[in-house]
Each structure stands twice: as structure tokens, then as C-alpha cells.
């Protein structure tokens, strides 16, 4: 890394010196040409003056032209031969043109080199900066649950609380551990995604089935947090995606929605086919976001104020965006403003349903999955 930087800086310095050299060479050549042309003009002028003197002294015009081949005599006046004057002017112009073309070509080439090197240096600086802030943020994200964990443990040790208070502390600690585990997973996932070291399959997958699997996993959490989750996805909607990626994307979006509505609310999933794509809409009644925050939502480490993403790593939606890009799909989010809920729309390329399933699905009504508040757990 360091050697590359030294090489880049050296190359940059060399190119800069070359550019200055070329500039100096151009100026020098220009000055040289100007001088040469002036000398030639002065010589011709002297010859013309001499010829004129000869004419005035009574030498015949023909004799003068014979003596001085560059001079023509007309009406008793000695003049420089027109073809010579023209040749001088055109030679002068030719040289200037040559400098202009060659000079600009070289300078352009050098400028391109400088731009390429400067760009590389800037990109490297940006990567470095991102890594720094990544480390700072990651350590911050870990230290908070770690501090909470330590505090709970020390509280247990110091105060020997009654069983129900102890139980509350233990639950808090378990949640902290789960949080850290989730963070590790997400950080690894995002690191892999960022380096593009991930190969996604492209299979036809039933969207309703994938959503149902994730909903089952989140049922318990939704019940505890008093969030009603409902899904109406037609079973004949098939998308082209990687099965694991589809799972991760739907889970991250739903977990995000859960965090946004924590303390009660609703999340609704619906889907439709449009223009060769299948769209999944996840609508929540949560904290929403302002217009300015919408743009940052899918960037790394975006934590929006308002409580929703308190537990997040700030990586969930970044992972969603990368996975959707790699699946040739897209993701967007919309909110009417803070406190007014949000809708995340995921779109995949549509897949033709396997015929047997499609004909079967056409006869069954849309699947209804919901996890209402008091649904008994089996």
C-alpha cells in the first residue's frame, strides 16, 4: 500500500516536471521562430534597400534582379519577390501550427496522466478515511451493548437483586448478546458484499413462500413488541433471485420496519407484478423519516434520529441495497415524513412460474399470513 503511494507520488512529480518542460520547450521554440523570422525579414529588407540604392545609382532593373535573385523590380522600385514573402509567412504559420498541435497533444496527455494519478490518490484517501470511520463506528456500535452487558452483570454482582429484577437484567443481557451477534453477522455480510466476493444464484423463487418463512421467524418479536404483521402476497408471483439473498433482504427490511414501529403498530406486506418485475411493498406505521434522511437511508451506518434504529448496526439497509443490486433488482423507500410511517419497495426481475405450481396456485386464493397481537404460540 505504502509502496504504491510512493510510486504514485513519484509518477505525479515526474509528470508535473514533464508538463513544465513541455511548456518551457514550447515557449522557447516560439521565441526561436519569432527571432528567425525577424532575422530573415531584416536580411530581405537590407537586400531591398541595397537594390533600391543600385536602381537609384542608375543600374538597370534587369541587372539588379540578376545580382539579387530575391528582388523583383517593378516601376523603378525594388521589392522582395512575392513568392519569397509568401513562403516566409507560410513557413512561419506552419511552425506555429506545429507547436500548437504538438504542444496541446503533449500537455493533454500529461494532464490526463495527472488526472488519473490524482484520482487514484483521492480514491485511496477516501478508502482510508472510510476504513477509519468504519472502525470507529464499529467499535462504538460494539462498545454500547458491551457497556450495557457489563453494567447489568455488575449490577447483579453488586446488588443481588430479587428474582424478578434479576430476570429482567438477564433478559437485557441476552438481548445485548443477540445484538452483538447480529452485528457480527451483518458486518461480515457487508464486508463480503462490498468486495463483491459473493456469487448469487439466479433461481425462480416463490415470493410468498420466502416472505412466510421470514415472518415465522419474526413472529415472536412482533408479538412482544405489539406489532401486527400481515402479508397478502399472491402465490403465483415468482422472482429471479438467490434463495439466501431473498431471505436476507426480506428479513432485513422487516427487522428495520419492526425497529421503526417498536412499541406498537402494524406492518403490511403486499406484492404485484409490473413490467417484467415483481414488486414487494413493506409498509409500516413507524417513525418514518424526513426527505433529507431518505437519501442516506441505504448508505452504510445511517442511524436516523427518532429511536427506530437504536439497536441497528446501520448496515441492514446497506446490505439490502447491495444484494438487490447484485440480484438485478432495486429497492426504494418512501415516507410522508417523520412519525408518518414508511414504505420500502423491493423489485426483482419476474420469473415464469413453474407450470405445475402456477396452475395450482391460480386456483387457490392469495395466501394470508398474519401475526396478530394475541395469537397463541404453538
Amino acid at each position, binding site marked *: 500500500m505504502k509502496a504504491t503511494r510512493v510510486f504514485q507520488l513519484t509518477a505525479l512529480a515526474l509528470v508535473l516536471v514533464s508538463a513544465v518542460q513541455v511548456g518551457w520547450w514550447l515557449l522557447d521554440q516560439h521565441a526561436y521562430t519569432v527571432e528567425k523570422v525577424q532575422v530573415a525579414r531584416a536580411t530581405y529588407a537590407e537586400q531591398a534597400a541595397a537594390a533600391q540604392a543600385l536602381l537609384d545609382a542608375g543600374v538597370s532593373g534587369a541587372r539588379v534582379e540578376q545580382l539579387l535573385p530575391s528582388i523583383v523590380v517593378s516601376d523603378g522600385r525594388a521589392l522582395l519577390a512575392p513568392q519569397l514573402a509568401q513562403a516566409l509567412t507560410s513557413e512561419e504559420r506552419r511552425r506555429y501550427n506545429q507547436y500548437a498541435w504538438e504542444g496541446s497533444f503533449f500537455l493533454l496527455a500529461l494532464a490526463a496522466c495527472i488526472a488519473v494519478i490524482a484520482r487514484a490518490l483521492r480514491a485511496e484517501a477516501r478508502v482510508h478515511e472510510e476504513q477509519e470511520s468504519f472502525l*470507529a463506528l464499529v*467499535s*462504538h456500535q460494539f*462498545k*454500547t*451493548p*458491551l*457497556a*450495557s*452487558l*457489563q*453494567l*447489568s452483570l*455488575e*449490577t447483579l454482582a*453488586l*446488588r443481588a437483586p430479587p428474582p424478578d429484577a434479576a430476570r429482567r437484567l438477564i433478559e*437485557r443481557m441476552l*438481548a*445485548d448478546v443477540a445484538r452483538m451477534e447480529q452485528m457480527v453477522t451483518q458486518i461480515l455480510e457487508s464486508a463480503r458484499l462490498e468486495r463483491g466476493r459473493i456469487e448469487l444464484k439466479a433461481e425462480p423463487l416463490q415470493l410468498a413462500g420466502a416472505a412466510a418463512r421470514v415472518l415465522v421467524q419474526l413472529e415472536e418479536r412482533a408479538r412482544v413488541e405489539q406489532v401486527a404483521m400481515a402479508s397478502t402476497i399472491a402465490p403465483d408471483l415468482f422472482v429471479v433471485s438467490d434463495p439466501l439473498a431473498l431471505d436476507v433482504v426480506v428479513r432485513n427490511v422487516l427487522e428495520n420496519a419492526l425497529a421503526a414501529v417498536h412499541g406498537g403498530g402494524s406492518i403490511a406486506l403486499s406484492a404485484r407484478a409490473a413490467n417484467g418485475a415483481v414488486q414487494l411493498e413493506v409498509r409500516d406505521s413507524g417513525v418514518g423519516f424526513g426527505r433529507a434522511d431518505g437519501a442516506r437511508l441505504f448508505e452504510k451506518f445511517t*442511524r*436516523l*434520529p*427518532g*429511536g427506530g434504529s*437504536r439497536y441497528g448496526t446501520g448496515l441492514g439497509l446497506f446490505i439490502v441495497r447491495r444484494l438487490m443490486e447484485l440480484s438485478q433488482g432495486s429497492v426504494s423507500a418512501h415516507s410522508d415524513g417523520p412519525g408518518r410511517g414508511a414504505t420500502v419497495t423491493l423489485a426483482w426481475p419476474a420469473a415464469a412460474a413453474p407450470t405445475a405450481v402456477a396452475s395450482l396456485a391460480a386456483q387457490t386464493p392469495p395466501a394470508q399470513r398474519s401475526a396478530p397481537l394475541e395469537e397463541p404460540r404453538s
Partner: protein
Amino acid sequence: MSTASAATHVLVVEDDPHLAAGVMENLRAEGYEVTSAGTGEQALEWLATHGCALIVLDVMLPGVDGFGVCRSLRERGDSTPVLFLTARGDPADRVHGLEAGGDDYLAKPFHLQEFLLRVRAIVRRWEWYRSASATAATALLRFGGNEVDFRAFRARAWNGEAQELTEKEAMILKVLAEHGGEIVSREDLLERVWGYDVFPSTRTVDNFILRLRKRFEKDPANPRHFLTVWGVGYRFLKDGEP
């Protein structure tokens, strides 16, 4: 500002609900009244109408960060002590926090006992300072043509110049004035003014004395009020050295 309940009231500003809950439960168990705020804006809003003995302030908050909150408070003349909690524990960050007007600084994850100790130390220090400046007689100190108002942290020097005192300067002056004529050791000053070892060096005390001399002595190089007792500490003479 300082009502009866405010003397034991602590404001906890922390955006992580688990950590906030843990800190609050422990403070309550120690007999403090506790209020919590999840963002810097909420904290500033609450502090505009309420007083408290201490603010436990997380640095990395969504929106205005902890340093920003502390700076806003100091700018509006609120001298409520602040204990910073932060995930970053490097010395540069620590200095940054103390410069922003914080009283103490604790890096996450922290030890519960140490946290409680520091809270107690800050609260006790300020309780002493407030009660020692409570009456009209103790709130004002006149010496050598200088006039110090301990409650407003302001002073008028012998040459008529208006002076804004920092909390630490005012506290040092208070300790010295309380022991007028007696020798106060550097360690005593550190203990009374800084409490826990935020600054481990007694050199810090010397620097503050130099600042006080510059503010209030007619000739800081030959002090008549803030006298050095070599190898021991300092002695304050209200009427000046005869």
C-alpha cells in the same frame, strides 16, 4: 435553579435504552432522582425549565452530540456539572470533552462502582460549592480591590476589568478563601476541586493559581494574595501580605 429536589436529581442522556435503563436503575438505587432523555435536543429542552445536580451525557447521540449539548449549556450560562460517557476513550477525546465544559469523562464499557464513585464525587463537590456560596456574605469575596461573585462566576478586578471565571477557578478561589491565611496543600486542592483523578498532576493546580494571579494580582510576579508555600501548597491572604 437549585430547588430541594434538584440537589439529588440526575439527568441521564443516553440513546441506548438498555444502557440508559441500567444507569438509571443504579442511580435510583443510590437514592438519586433520575430523568432520562434520548437525544441532545430533548436534554436541552428539559434543562431549559428544570435544574439538576448532574448530567450523565453520552457523547455519540443522534442529532446534536454530547459535546454540542455541553457547549450550548455553558454558553447559556448553565454550570450544571457534566459527566461524559463515551465509546471513545483516547486521551484526545478526553481533552475534547473537558474543553467542551465537562467535569469528568468515563469510557464505555465502564465499571459500575467507578461510575457511582465519580457521580458521588461530582455531586458532593457541587453541593459543597453551592452551600458555601449560599448566603449573601459567602457569595461575594472582596480582596485587594477585587470583587468576586461566586454564584455568577463573575468578577471585577482591581483595575475595573470584568472577568468571567471558569468553574474550576471559582472553586479553587472558594477553597482558598474558606481557609484564608492557612496553608492549603496542592493535593487538598485537587481533591476538593477535581475530586476523582481527572487530572492526575498537581502541576494543574499550579497553572490555575498562575491564572488567578494574572486576573487579580496587581503584580502577578510578586503576589500579595496568592502566596506559594514552597514544597507544600498555597496560602490565600484576603488583606494582602503586609
